[in-house]
């Protein structure tokens, strides 16, 4: 058995890449950019998906959510075209359902979310992106909503009062200290009694950006909807994580009974809470990764191109090496390692560049950080390796197939 020549070929590759420095750099740059864009997309989309998971575990995991409509396990790419689960189905969830849920043993708190359209106006300011949410005073028990000033809605102050998000306060009044000020919506006047602390979490399992929300009581909300509560979501908190599955079962039985035996709702808990959103991110991420993959293919073609040039330039060298005893596989490895060195160098540089860029983007525009994970490392180096292998193999085989006589004769 002969000694493998990997180290020798690596030395050769290094020498020959160094000899043609500028074209090596350009080729590596092609791979670097491809890998970097994949890293950016993967790290940011995983980062986004992780947010909701963290919110759920912040609450001890004992949180469940009831939504109208049914969700099925869809393939990822479908969720791009599908609307977020149930958001276009008429809601069948009512106050009676809420009451029934609250009466179940083990449910610590339950709060409805009734999301109402329409503008909010104070003076001449009518900010965009506002969600008006009608709920009960129980909401802070279920969802983490720290107050910056004032108080949350309670049984006494529930009429014509509102708690608003920090950004909405600024958009409406130009300041966050707005307790006691009033705004209009749906022809009625509301007094601000509390301001939420800035959360900067536009992505959460409520699908509500609380920074831009005006929270009013369920009674007031019903008034805008001809006195019918149309609840998009009921948030439930159980007294312990362990009991959650039992409680969910009970809620399911109770609601199915209320809805004439039809299970036209979905109860989500744990990781499932994050699922609809995660699926969306995964789908967007997957699509973007494919696009980034195309740039990597272009980089790979660059590698192949340069390798073919290298093989043509070194035809004579190949002839000499074969005459001196190099086998075809020796020659294949010599050239393959050269392309692998280039693509792996591109992979490494791309990994670094990708994270730097992802961090820059996240810090500047996004409320979350990119994620470091071994899967992403693996993906980066796996693809780099594959690109080097796939696009280096053909030139290497071509080099090895050169007839030594022709190679030695033609290039005097």
């Amino acid at each position, binding site marked *: 058995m*002969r*000694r493998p*020549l990997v*180290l*020798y070929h690596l030395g050769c590759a290094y*020498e*020959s890449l160094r*000899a043609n420095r500028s074209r090596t750099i350009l080729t590596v740059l092609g791979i670097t950019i491809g890998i970097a864009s994949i890293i950016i997309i993967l790290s940011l989309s995983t980062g986004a998906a992780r947010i909701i998971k963290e919110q759920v575990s912040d609450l001890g995991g004992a949180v469940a959510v009831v939504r109208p409509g049914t969700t099925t396990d869809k393939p990822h790419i479908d969720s791009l075209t599908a609307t977020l689960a149930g958001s276009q189905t008429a809601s069948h969830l009512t106050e009676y359902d809420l009451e029934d849920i609250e009466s179940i043993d083990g449910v610590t708190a339950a709060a409805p979310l009734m999301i109402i359209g329409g503008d909010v106006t104070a003076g001449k300011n009518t900010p965009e992106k506002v969600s008006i949410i009608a709920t009960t005073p129980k909401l802070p028990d279920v969802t983490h909503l720290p107050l910056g000033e004032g108080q949350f809605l309670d049984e006494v102050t529930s009429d014509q009062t509102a708690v608003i998000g920090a950004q909405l306060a600024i958009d409406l009044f130009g300041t966050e200290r707005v307790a006691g000020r009033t705004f209009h919506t749906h022809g009625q006047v509301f007094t601000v009694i509390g301001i939420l602390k800035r959360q900067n979490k536009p992505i959460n399992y409520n699908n509500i950006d609380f920074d831009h929300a005006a929270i009013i009581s369920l009674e007031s909300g019903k008034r805008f909807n001809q006195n019918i509560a149309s609840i998009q979501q009921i948030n439930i908190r159980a007294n312990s994580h362990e009991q959650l599955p039992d409680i969910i079962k009970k809620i399911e039985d109770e609601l199915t009974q209320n809805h004439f035996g039809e299970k036209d709702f979905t109860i989500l808990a744990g990781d499932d809470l994050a699922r609809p959103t995660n699926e969306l991110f995964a789908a967007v991420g997957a699509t973007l990764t494919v696009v980034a993959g195309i740039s990597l293919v272009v980089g790979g073609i660059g590698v192949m191109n340069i390798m073919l040039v290298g093989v043509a330039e070194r035809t*004579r*060298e190949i*002839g*000499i*090496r*074969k*005459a*001196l*005893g*190099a*086998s*075809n*596989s*020796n020659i294949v490895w010599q050239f393959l390692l050269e392309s692998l060195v280039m693509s792996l160098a591109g992979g490494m540089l791309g990994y670094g560049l990708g994270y730097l860029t992802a961090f820059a983007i996240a810090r500047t525009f996004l409320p979350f950080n990119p994620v470091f994970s071994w899967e992403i490392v693996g993906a980066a180096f796996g693809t780099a390796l594959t690109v080097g292998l796939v696009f280096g193999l053909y030139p290497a085989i071509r080099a090895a197939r050169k007839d*030594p*006589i022709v190679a*030695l004769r033609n290039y*005097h």
Partner: protein
Amino acid sequence: MKIVTTQPVIVLKGLKKRYGIGDAEQTVLDGINLKIHRGEFIAIMGPSGCGKTTLLNILGLLDHADEGEYLLDGRSVDTLSNSRRARIRSEQIGFVFQSFNLIPRLNVIDNVALPLTYKGVSKTKRLMEASKMLSTFHLSNREYYMPWQLSGGQSQRVAIARALVNNPSIILADEPTGNLDSRSSHVIMEELSDIHQRGNTIIMVTHNPNLTSYASRVITMLDGKIASDTLTPRGKKTNIPSKRRLDERRKRSKSSKTKRQKEDK
């Protein structure tokens, strides 16, 4: 290892080689029968296109014959796979080319060590061997020169050192002095002659009739056939120096080296 000197190192039987197809077909080698013994220094002469180089390429396993049989060290090599042929090239054959064919990116010592690389010798060992081989050609002070820094004569000496470094059974030289002036040619021929004296088998293709004086046997080719095959006075005199002598010399130097090492301890 016992070397059987009576067995010819190369036997060719009815070797034929054709190039081209149809009307353009051309027979380059037309039934070559040849026996070459160990320790011979053969000069192959003949006009251009008579098939000398093709014969050399076939002997060096760079090319296939279309018909006939080629036995190298008593083994038929016609049916061997490409990788087996590469292995034989690396272990038994040394090439010397007209245009030196040093690899321009590698320095002198790396060029000389190249055949050992493909033989699987470790880096330190192959550099040591190469260095030793270069010193026999008085090129020790050129080890780290690049090929373009050498004169033609030096380049060819490096190439000969490279051909010899893996201790091959036969050395194939294709017009080794074709690109050199007469003085360098003389030096190179002296080197080859010296190698021959040390027991190596050399097959050399040349145009220059003056060089045949170094050979022990001269073969003239014409139109793909052997036209004449004569032993030179030198060939009659030296009477095939056996390779055993070289091996014995090596053994001696090795044992003296180990003795020296023991003394050092």
